[in-house]
């Protein structure tokens, strides 16, 4: 009846997990009780859970991403404290089997459920607003994407309390991830949560690519598209070309584990190296999928806070395109040591080094954007300056490792771990956090308290160097990654410094949490001058999203903007806006739908049942999902028109706020 699931799967004998479970349960019950007490279930369901509005989905993505950031960061704290303790005979407090699950969960969560989630949040919020669209091309599919991501995040967290998580690292390399060496359910949790979230990401990629191609405002030619949207465009192309590869490799691994096939096994003709090629020809483009939108965020912020147009717009676009292409032909640099000959390794090594060229072009473009500009060092700008310094160092260590000969020495060492945290924290994370504070006032109509953002940045910046520069050092001294304990006295002081660093990072996370708590407080109760009256929250916005009120009305644009060139909004601010010629018309919008949450619930049931071999539940989930889709396809009542009266009322209120803002100046 319950497949492999028995009472013994619940780890009630592990005190850390029991404590965590009690904590999660208390918080969960408190949230549910609060929603019930304030009678908000109806509101939550009607306005948020069933929404197809890209702006609300973006906010839900952000919430999910932040929760998962805290979860993944807790794993990081555990690893660093373990390594500070587990020296010379002291086993530390995490037994190896548990430690293996912690680092696997940390990697999987940070990439799939923090970074990818934040990236989709930014896509959702920014892309339609920047191109003057009223929603994405397929609003319902957008909601389904979100639910696929959400339920796979839930699935990965269930593994904490029922069964176990994968203990083979974030990419699940065979043969150790095969049934022969890993008979537990950990790898199965990994496979199905990655697989379900992959469906969501693939749908997002398809959706936003179509949106950018088809839904641009009238007059917006390709070279009028803001740089963030360009980076989203290229990231979507990479999602569409590489996520199917991930799906296939996970599916083949699942076939090995579930029905005894031999794709990646040691015997029976399996090839482990095939898995490595497959997973990295997804995995390397994946890191560019993450970093390109961060580059886009930096481009927007650099221009806005320097009061200048972005330097080298065209080269920025071309460099992004080149990175997209080169990113697809470098995957072997993740396994130079697998034994290929000099010709293969040289090809992939040189291709990898090439990527530093377009990336360097971008760095200089941002520097020249700031050069002779009136740079204002508000919160978002802090992150970009920190990014340029940190990311350049990370890029250089990357070029070091692109040399196959050097890579043979430092492969799989903590040097590598330091390198990719250097580019992912210093690039991706800084970028997404900067984007969060940059577009926050557009979403909510007021700014987050900058002082806490700046403190978060300072702690993250210093904490990063304290945590990871020591890892470069111990990596060069030969310490391999994923080590549970060690005896080498040379490594111990470095790892103590890294442990201090991770607590500085924790202070950064705490500042961010405080910033959000204050933001929640300000949302109900803030000073009148904190309102963003003009919609141009930073006063120097250049792209279309700053031309409309904040928070944005649900139909985005009362009249579709007419685009005459790059930064049309900025030019119209300088020269005066032409009076609108077109009269207001009813706006055609999609209705909210429960299909997303229902399919999400099906996905969760299917995923959990597959992990535990509860076949009847898999079938039930598939049947319900199938009929939900059929029912939706037969439903013609999927849209409505926003009335002219409503739009006019919004427009008049916005005009009044603009007049008040002008009077205040």
């Amino acid at each position: 009846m319950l497949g492999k699931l028995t009472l013994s799967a619940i780890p009630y004998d592990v005190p850390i997990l029991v404590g965590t479970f009690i904590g999660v349960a208390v918080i969960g019950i408190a949230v549910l009780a609060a929603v019930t007490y304030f009678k908000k279930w109806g509101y939550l369901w009607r306005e948020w859970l069933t929404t197809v509005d890209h702006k609300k989905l973006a906010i839900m993505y952000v919430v999910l991403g932040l929760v998962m950031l805290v979860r993944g960061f807790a794993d990081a704290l555990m690893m660093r404290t373990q390594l500070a303790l587990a020296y010379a005979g002291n086993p530390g407090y995490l037994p190896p089997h548990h430690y293996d699950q912690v680092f696997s969960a940390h990697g999987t969560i940070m990439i799939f459920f923090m970074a990818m989630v934040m990236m989709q949040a930014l896509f959702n919020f920014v892309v339609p607003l920047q191109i003057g669209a009223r929603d994405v091309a397929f609003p319902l599919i957008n909601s389904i994407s979100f639910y696929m991501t959400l339920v796979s995040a839930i699935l990965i967290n269930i593994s904490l309390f029922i069964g176990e998580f994968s203990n083979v690292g974030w990419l699940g390399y065979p043969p150790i991830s095969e049934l022969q060496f890993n008979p537990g359910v950990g790898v199965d949790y990994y496979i199905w949560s990655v697989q379900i979230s992959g469906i969501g990401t693939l749908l997002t990629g398809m959706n936003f690519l179509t949106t950018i191609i088809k839904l641009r405002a009238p007059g917006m030619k390709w070279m009028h598209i803001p740089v963030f949207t360009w980076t989203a465009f290229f990231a979507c192309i990479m999602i569409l070309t590489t996520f199917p590869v991930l799906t296939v490799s996970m599916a083949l691994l699942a076939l090995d584990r579930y029905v005894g096939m031999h794709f990646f096994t040691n015997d029976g003709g399996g090839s482990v190296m095939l898995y490595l090629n497959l997973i990295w020809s997804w995995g390397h483009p994946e890191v560019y999928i993450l970093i390109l939108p961060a580059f886009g965020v930096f481009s927007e912020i650099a221009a806005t806070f320097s009061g200048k147009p972005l330097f080298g717009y065209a080269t920025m676009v071309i460099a992004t395109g080149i990175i997209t292409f080169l990113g697809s032909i470098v995957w072997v640099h993740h396994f130079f040591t697998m034994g290929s000959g000099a010709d293969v390794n040289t090809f992939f090594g040189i291709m990898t080094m090439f990527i530093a060229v377009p990336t360097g072009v971008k760095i200089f473009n941002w520097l020249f954007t700031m050069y002779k500009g009136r740079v204002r060092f508000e919160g978002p700008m802090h992150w970009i300056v920190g990014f340029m310094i940190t990311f350049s160092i990370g890029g250089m260590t990357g070029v070091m490792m692109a040399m196959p000969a050097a890579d043979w020495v430092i492969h799989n060492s903590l040097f590598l771990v330091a390198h990719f945290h250097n580019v992912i924290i210093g690039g991706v994370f800084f970028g997404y956090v900067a984007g969060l504070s940059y577009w926050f006032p557009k979403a909510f109509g007021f700014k987050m308290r900058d002082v806490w953002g700046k403190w978060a940045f300072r702690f993250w910046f210093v904490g990063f160097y304290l945590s990871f520069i020591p890892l470069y050092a111990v990596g060069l001294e030969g310490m391999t990654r994923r080590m549970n304990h060690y005896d080498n006295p040379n490594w111990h002081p470095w790892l103590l410094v890294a442990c201090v660093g991770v607590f500085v990072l924790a202070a950064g996370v705490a500042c961010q949490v405080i910033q959000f708590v204050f933001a929640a407080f300000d949302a109900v109760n803030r000073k009148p001058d904190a309102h963003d009256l003009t919609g141009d929250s930073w006063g120097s916005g250049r792209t279309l999203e700053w031309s409309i009120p904040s928070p944005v009305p649900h139909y985005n644009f009362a009249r579709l903007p007419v685009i005459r060139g790059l930064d049309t909004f900025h030019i119209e601010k300088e020269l005066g806006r032409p009076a609108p010629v077109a009269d207001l018309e009813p706006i055609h919008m999609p209705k909210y739908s429960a299909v997303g949450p229902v399919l999400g619930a099906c996905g969760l049931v299917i995923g959990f049942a597959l992990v535990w071999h509860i076949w009847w539940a898999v079938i039930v989930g598939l049947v319900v999902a199938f009929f939900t889709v059929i029912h939706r396809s037969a439903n013609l009542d999927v849209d409505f028109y926003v009335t002219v009266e409503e739009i006019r009322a919004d427009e008049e209120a916005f005009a009044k706020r603009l007049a008040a803002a002008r009077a205040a100046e």
Partner: protein
Amino acid sequence: MSENHTTSHEGENHGTYGSYIVGFVLAVILTVASFAAVLSKAFSFWQTIAVLGVLAAVQMVVHLIFFLHMGMKSTSQRHNLAAFVVTALMVAIVIIGYLFVLWDAQANMMAG
């Protein structure tokens, strides 16, 4: 103000009656030619393989143009073409790359 409004299908993406007929006739001719090349025994073994390969390649192009609506005439045809080219490029990178890498995987093994 609510009315049912199913999503529209724009005509530009779809072929005309005439173009489907042309495509169908070409496909039939190419198929018959393939069978004829084998059944007539006019060619040697390797020649037959080569002829079949050429006919198959042409057949694919006919399908892409007349049935999958690729081309340069309308925006939507160009989108179809671009999507196809990107997909083909990615598949080529993956297949050629894997062959290149895995063929070489034993370079440092004594087995030669």
